[in-house]
């Protein structure tokens, strides 16, 4: 069997998702028996223009990034968005809530006007190019990456969960965060993280993005029953739900 050539790229992000790949250890060695990495800045020095699968981390914040991404898209047969920055725009999209010039001055002070610091509205990968598969999460769960790669290797379409985090949370038999008077985004967020946060006594902040058809109407109505407001809900949604 010819091993598919795989390349990993990153844009604006913390590289935490790639770190999850590095941390796979033994699982990573098994994976590498089936694919051939040809470019991966975090782990190797080679560069390549020829690959079958491109795994792309991070969000797009500059026109030159958008162009580089279009170039990657052209070369890759399959493009996988890795992590919340890539699939949703992630925390980087908080920038979109402010005026761009203000943001630049706040971050770079006097140097803000340097051309190299040019910045634009943050976009997720699918807002720039077609994305074949998404691996959600901030950070990703490495088990989901292995699942997707295995599917590609045996020629099956990966099917990420299209049900809310509550499913995995119930399977883990957690006490619901609503019992503690907290707002949890679990009911509208896509599962796949094994309910990581509620399993560790924290509400879900929606890092895996919404399910296909989230019942936002229900979420707003339900707030009142818990003595909360729609504003309270919106605040929780800002982190990973900013457009």
């Amino acid at each position, binding site marked *: 069997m010819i091993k598919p050539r795989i390349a990993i790229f990153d844009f604006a992000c913390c590289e935490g998702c790639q770190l999850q790949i590095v941390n796979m250890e033994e699982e990573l060695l098994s994976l590498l028996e089936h694919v051939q990495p040809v470019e991966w800045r975090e782990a190797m020095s080679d560069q390549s223009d020829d690959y079958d699968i491109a795994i792309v981390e991070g969000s797009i914040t500059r026109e030159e990034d958008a162009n580089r991404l279009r170039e990657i898209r052209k070369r890759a047969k399959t493009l996988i968005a890795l992590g919340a920055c890539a699939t949703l725009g992630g925390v980087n999209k908080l920038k979109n809530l402010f005026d761009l010039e203000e943001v630049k001055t706040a971050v770079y002070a006097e140097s803000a006007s340097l051309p190299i610091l040019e910045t634009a509205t943050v976009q997720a990968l699918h807002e720039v190019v077609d994305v074949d598969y998404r691996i959600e999460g901030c950070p990703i769960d490495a088990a989901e990456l292995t699942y997707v790669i*295995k599917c590609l290797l045996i020629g099956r379409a990966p099917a990420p969960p299209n049900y809310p985090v*509550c*499913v995995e949370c*119930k399977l883990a*038999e*957690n006490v619901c965060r609503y019992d503690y008077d907290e707002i949890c985004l679990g009911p509208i967020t896509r599962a796949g993280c094994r309910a990581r946060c509620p399993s560790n006594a924290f509400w879900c902040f929606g890092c895996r993005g919404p*399910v296909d058809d989230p019942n936002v109407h229900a979420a707003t109505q339900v707030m009142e029953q818990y003595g909360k407001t729609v504003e309270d809900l919106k605040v929780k949604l800002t982190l990973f739900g900013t457009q």
Partner: protein
Amino acid sequence: MGIKLVARARLDAWVDSLVQQQTVYGAQAKGDRFAFDRLERASALRLDYDVTILPPKKYFQPQREVIMRFNRKTVEFESVIDEEPFVLFGVHPYDMVAISQMDKVFTMNQFDKHYMARRANATIVVSSVETASSSVFAACMNNATMRGKSGHDVLITKLPSGHYVVDPRTEKGDNLCEGLAEAPEANAEALDAREKVLNQNEKSLRKYELRVLPEDLPALLDRSRSHPVWQEKAELCYSCGSCNFVCPTCYCFDVEDEMGWDMETGHRVRKWDGCMLVDFAAVAGGHNFRSKRSARYSHRYYRKGKYSWDTYGEISCVGCGRCITACTANIANPVEIFNTLAEAPQ
């Protein structure tokens, strides 16, 4: 062995010796709530629990279980059967009723050897309810006590005096209670006190009052297909399946193959699934039999109050009240729905 009257210290000593000898799962505290978990010592056992987050069905049909190992290349496969005997300690009567129903379901059309192996390996100690949960309505469904019911191996009931009546009901139960041989027999007074506890439970385990008889639910549901309540409530439904997963009589599952890295060997896993989830009724070709939220929403009630009646002659809502608390949208109360349907003019 006869019925025993057991002081708390002796009960604890007995449980402590049981956990030394075998695998015991018992009701224990989990945060502010309760869950069945592996019991390490008697002091962790909370027979005063109100309700566990998940029902004990997880020990017969685990959330995720490997049912087969296979080799794609040689086309060899072998079933995986769980052989370990275990004790389930402190099951409430409504959950025991549910287990007995699941026994029917898993043997009805096809004998499910994975489920039945665990079932045969289990010794079940039912505990009469000591604390009513905030949403239990088992009494409305005639499931507040074990009166007239079977399936359990031992019944233990705490008396107001603080002593326990331990009542072995089967040979397995007798064997389990061997360690209590020295305890005194329960006298007439103790048995009388037990009857009073059971009478009391039949009164108090109804935090909601069902205004129809359980046996009238099939007919009620039959004439209520176009009731506006389905649409109305469905608008608030997240399709999160919490009401399914916490239900002791929801048994739907999905089967999936997981491949090893050699790309030859793998295993088949069975996982919990629920009819409230969007993709539950989706079939190959992209068709979804219940793509509408309202169709999924009503299905659960039909399943509990009519379809189970039609297929195995029982109402499959046992009245545990778990779905009521588990639903973050507060729309999953079967009593509320059935009463609403009953109010409609016929």
